[in-house]
């Protein structure tokens, strides 16, 4: 019986040597054409981050379509407002998640048109909530992430930081009617390190528990 696809090739052209050529050719035919930005197949972490992002924006009434995850070849161009949050695993590995979104999307989410300060405040809160969703979903792999406090970042500064980011940095883009939302994740575990242990008695976003 074949192993569940927790560890997928990192790029469309990386095929297992054990695979028959005809299978490789068939899989290659199923893949979208290569763009200038290398594209990766969607793995467990990708699914988890993208699903968390889509659900978070959906909760605030924004439809967001996730684009294929891109490997770092060049840093993405970032929208106006950015925030970041650090995280650490139990094995003391640390990482960072950033969320950048256009002011126009914030305007759609908030009934009152937020000013600069309020936009930054809301970007921090959304980053915190995105981290929370990812953290809760990682529990099904017995991974406990410790999140720090969110902070705002100048998009230009973040763009320059991303130029020197490690090659393992993941960048995700989601399209909305008012522009693109960009998420980057550095220092996250690899798919191969995840082992599904089943649902971890986690409550869901929006739940109310009265004691």
């Amino acid at each position, binding site marked *: 019986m074949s192993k569940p696809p927790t560890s997928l090739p990192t790029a469309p052209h990386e095929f297992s040597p054990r695979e028959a050529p005809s299978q490789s050719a068939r899989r290659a035919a199923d893949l979208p054409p290569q763009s200038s930005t290398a594209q990766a197949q969607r793995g467990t972490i990708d699914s988890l981050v993208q699903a968390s992002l889509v659900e978070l924006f959906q909760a605030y009434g924004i439809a967001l379509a996730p684009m294929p995850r891109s490997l770092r070849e060049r840093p993405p161009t970032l929208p106006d407002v950015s925030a970041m949050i650090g995280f650490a695993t139990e094995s003391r590995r640390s990482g960072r998640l950033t969320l950048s979104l256009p002011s126009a999307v914030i305007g759609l989410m908030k009934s009152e048109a937020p000013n600069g300060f309020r936009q930054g405040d809301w970007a921090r809160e959304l980053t915190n909530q995105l981290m929370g969703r990812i*953290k809760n979903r990682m529990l099904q792999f017995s991974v406990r992430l410790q999140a720090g406090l969110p902070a705002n970042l100048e998009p230009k500064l973040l763009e320059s930081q991303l130029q020197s980011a490690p090659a393992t940095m993941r960048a995700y883009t989601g399209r909305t009617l008012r522009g693109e939302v960009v998420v980057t994740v550095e220092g996250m575990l690899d798919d191969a390190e995840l082992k599904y242990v089943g649902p*971890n*008695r986690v409550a869901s976003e929006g*739940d*109310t528990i009265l*004691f």
Partner: protein
Amino acid sequence: MREVLVVDDSQTIRREIAKALEPAGFEVVEAGDGVSGLERAGEREFALIILDVNMPRMNGMEMLDHLKADPKTADIPVIMLTTEAEQTTIERARKAGAKGWLIKPVPMAHIVSTVQALARRAQA
């Protein structure tokens, strides 16, 4: 008018909760972290406290412990409002004396009905 203390590091969240609770007959006092939240909690007789977990200076779980350890604030019902959803953390808050756990994002109408229910329960 019954007073509710909202402790959350997001001003947007605090304002939205205030905007939702005020028409329901609550006056809202705001604090942006656990330290200032604790100071505010001792200043008046609050009907209820809504408390975020992940905050600077003092997090919500620590603030909850301080509130319950002080006889002056121990009886104020506390609802945690957070992104945290792990059962062990929720259980820890229950044992520490919290009355409820709301997982963000929560519709404001839901927050209002929960606050009303718990404030009524505390009065009875």
